[in-house]
């Protein structure tokens, strides 16, 4: 698990490139997690692992971030929860999840059988609850890191409420930091006054990495009923439409901090992922694109590898943050 699975992952990659003596090194280290390649699945788009396990080789991924977990089971929003938009997708799932105990009992055994680092996306309805969930996972075997979801636009209490004011976010991160030894990865909202300031506060408050962007708060209206299409009114926009926004934010955040940045937002191919890496992300996550093509993340790995090789680098790390501007 986590770091432990790395060696085998590396082995596989070597095999993949068996007929090529100079396969570049794709391994990266993010928040102390050694990932065999910089490509993970984004929280909320790959369930808890088993859902896609028959369609893609989970072991070939850099990491997997499971859907946001609360202390207790959570129902989420009524349907409709999803609507397509130009170049994107609007969702308001509302963080439905089985709660931490059921997640640990039902899904962790499955996840532990894989050699891919598991990042657990967690949230709370209060600061204290964030701490409680974090503390619970501290005891659980096979978890590589916790991603603190302080940026979900789709719930009334919790989530983004803690992720728009940098002081509150700082306080939350410090509180959670005290409750767990696991690496902490706060996940940032795109709707911030200053992403650089926010990233720095996360860093100073004890974050081991940051991930961004979460979905962009948005709305689609049905003009016949004159109601929002989504039951929740507002949802979060994801997919290719938001990619240029995400690249800009990742670039600004990565310049501001020393801790690694995990970039995401609209990645659908290697070229897209490379934009993020060049902008300064140490790793990337594929979300919405998995729905269209479950194999996206693995294709992204291959395409990154081909690029790194073609550009004559020995390691993918050599391209991180190389934007000339």
């Amino acid at each position, binding site marked *: 698990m986590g770091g432990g699975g790395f060696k085998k992952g590396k082995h596989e990659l070597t095999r993949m490139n068996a007929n090529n003596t100079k396969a570049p090194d794709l391994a990266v280290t993010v928040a102390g997690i050694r990932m065999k390649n910089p490509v993970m699945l984004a929280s*909320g*788009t*790959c*369930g808890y692992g088993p*859902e*896609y396990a*028959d*369609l893609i080789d989970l072991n070939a991924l850099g990491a997997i971030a499971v*859907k946001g977990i609360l202390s207790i089971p959570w*129902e*989420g929003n*009524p*349907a*409709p*929860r*999803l*609507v*397509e*938009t*130009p*170049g*994107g*997708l609007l*969702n308001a*799932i509302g963080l*439905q999840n089985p709660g931490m105990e059921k997640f640990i009992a039902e899904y962790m055994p499955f996840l532990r059988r894989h050699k891919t680092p598991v990042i657990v996306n967690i949230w709370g309805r209060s600061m204290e609850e964030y701490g409680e969930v974090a503390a619970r996972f501290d005891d659980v075997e096979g978890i590589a890191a916790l991603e603190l979801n302080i940026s979900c636009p789709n719930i009334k209490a919790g989530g983004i409420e803690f992720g728009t004011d940098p002081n509150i976010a700082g306080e939350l991160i410090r509180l959670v930091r005290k409750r767990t030894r696991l690496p902490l990865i706060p996940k940032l909202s795109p709707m911030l006054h200053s992403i650089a300031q926010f990233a720095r506060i996360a860093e100073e408050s004890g974050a081991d990495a940051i991930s961004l962007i979460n979905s962009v708060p948005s709305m689609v209206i049905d003009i016949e009923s004159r109601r929002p299409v989504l039951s929740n009114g507002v949802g979060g926009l*994801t*997919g*290719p439409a938001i990619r240029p926004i995400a690249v800009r934010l990742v670039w600004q955040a990565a310049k501001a901090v020393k801790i690694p940045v995990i970039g995401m937002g609209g990645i659908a191919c290697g070229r897209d992922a490379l934009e993020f890496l060049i902008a300064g992300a140490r790793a990337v996550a594929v979300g*919405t*694109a*998995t*729905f*269209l*093509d*479950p*194999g996206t993340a693995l294709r992204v790995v291959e395409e990154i590898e081909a690029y790194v090789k073609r550009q004559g680098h020995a390691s993918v790390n050599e391209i991180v943050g190389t934007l000339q501007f």
Partner: protein
Amino acid sequence: MRLMEEARVIVHTEFGGGYRRIVFDAPGIAAIAAPGQFVHIRIPQLSQEALRRPFSIYRSKGRELQVMYKPVGRGTHVMEHAVVGDVYSLLGPLGRGFPVDRAGIFPVCVAGGYGVAPLSFLAEKLECPGVVFIGGRKAQDILCTEDFAGLGWDVRVATEDGSVGEKGLVTEAFDRWVAARAPGAMAPEIYACGPERLMHVLTERAARHGWQAWLSLDRPMGCGIGACLACVQRVRDANGKQHWARCCTEGPVFDSKELVWEAADLKKASTN
């Protein structure tokens, strides 16, 4: 089991009522597809769209998998231009279909719109024929009657404009048929697919009469395989505890006893 398969279009024709039919060469999916299941189709030319489109399986035989669709939006308007030889990525078969192994039942199908497609496939797999109600706006909307008739089904048609069959909604035809039955006649086992309103009515009728009903629901879908939690329907378990079920995995076909609808919808259903 489910597969992702690159499927060649081998036939693409008009079907009637504005619907079209595509036959794919999809041996893997065709081999295991069951009635009520669906395929999640990636439309290759929609380069910028974020999602696949779900379609019920109309037939599977040998290597061939058929769907029936109506051009209604961006995706289906592109599909309309598919030509023989085009390759589409199909993910399927997905979801839980209709039960086909229930012995000694008296099957009654109720179809609206594209709902007739999975029910026609179902009829092919059921042991004995029964009664099928097919509804639509006008004569041209009534599809697949020969599919059922050929299998010995009693086909009953309802059109809103009365241009063929009984005039009115398919639920009205169904209700009239129910009312005309001899007391003590064998309880029907209902299979249905169609608009949401039809599902409300049939849930209410099944509950009222204590019938078994299998209803297929239509929800906007993201992943189609249970990961995104987009496609939910409120259901209750045997203990009456409610939760959200995913139509793409726990459904699209549900036992009507499990379905939790808004009180207002059920009330409306009880009076029409």
